[in-house]
């Protein structure tokens, strides 16, 4: 299984290399995601062992955000100074973004599917 973990690391490495050399506004791992995607397209399927390694990483994804989140400890005083505006802005804008995105996706997605089936003809 370590071969496929190595493949994942290699994709990330090449992604970081790409970002550093082009200055593209993307994180290296996101470019690496694109590279692994290309690998899967060329391969024409997901090898079982890659599935196991990927499944292990993704089913524990939440845990991986804990160390960075604990970093809140270094900004407690700054956060306290603007506590009300920052928390109100985060809460309301996150709720708005969820509602607006889900609603527009559900609406346009229906159109997309109907158009694919040829039932709807608009431009």
């Amino acid at each position: 299984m370590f071969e496929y973990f190595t493949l994942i690391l290699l994709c990330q490495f090449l992604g970081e290399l790409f970002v550093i050399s082009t200055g593209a506004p993307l994180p290296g791992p996101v470019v690496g995601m694109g590279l692994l995607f290309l690998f899967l397209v060329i391969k024409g399927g997901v090898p079982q062992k890659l599935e196991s390694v990927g499944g292990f990483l993704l089913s524990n994804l939440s845990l991986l955000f804990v160390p960075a989140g604990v970093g809140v400890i270094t900004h407690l005083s700054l956060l306290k100074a603007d506590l009300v505006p920052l928390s109100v802005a985060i809460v309301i804008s996150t709720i708005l973004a969820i509602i607006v995105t889900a609603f527009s996706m559900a609406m346009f997605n229906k159109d997309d599917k109907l158009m694919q089936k040829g039932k709807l003809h608009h431009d």
Partner: protein
Amino acid sequence: MTEQQNVWVYLSSNPLLHLTMTMAVFALANKIYKKANFNPLLNPVLISIMVIVSFLLLSNTSYDTYFTGAQFIHFLLGPATVALAIPLYKQFNRIKQSAGAIVASLLIGSSTAAVSAIGIAWLLDAKLLSIVSLAPKSITAPVAMGISEQLGGLASLTAVLVILTGILGAMLGPWIVKLIKIKDNAALGMALGTASHGIGTARALQVNDVAGAFSGLAMGLNALATAILLPLLWQLF
């Protein structure tokens, strides 16, 4: 120095202590979360951060010391992001069918997230430094920190606001989408990934593969869209 103090000095300088503590606290938080039938208020990321922060404050441990151990977990964020290609590949046919809807809802959601956050913070008299640091809050931390710096914000404050936004989106997302009576898993995924990046995607993957794939895609596309659009928008102010 007493025997116990010696043990503590040894353990607290060894990366194993904070690595083990992070895993153990999360395992416990996750168990409670499952027992409570995924009650959003008991989000395991939030609970773990609160417990660990309290512990560090009480034991007078610096974040740097903590991170010496926790970095091994943090490092896996990169490989996990790469692994998102797997659900993306498996759902690719569905994603292709919805290409138009994905681009449209992403642009609408992404601009709503940034503009409403800037507007509300400004109306409530937040400091300019806070407003700039807040603007890219809905996108994945490495890109958000870069944009924040470019606009004159504080990258480390942005990282904290990004994580708080992610936790909030993961907590509220599935509940809000149910409340507005949307049953489309692709829509849930798009909403979680656009509003709350990787933490939202972690939550979407727990719902199902379709929501997870759309969320991972939305997270990547939102990083790209915001990195291009936000600096342009900022110049209009």
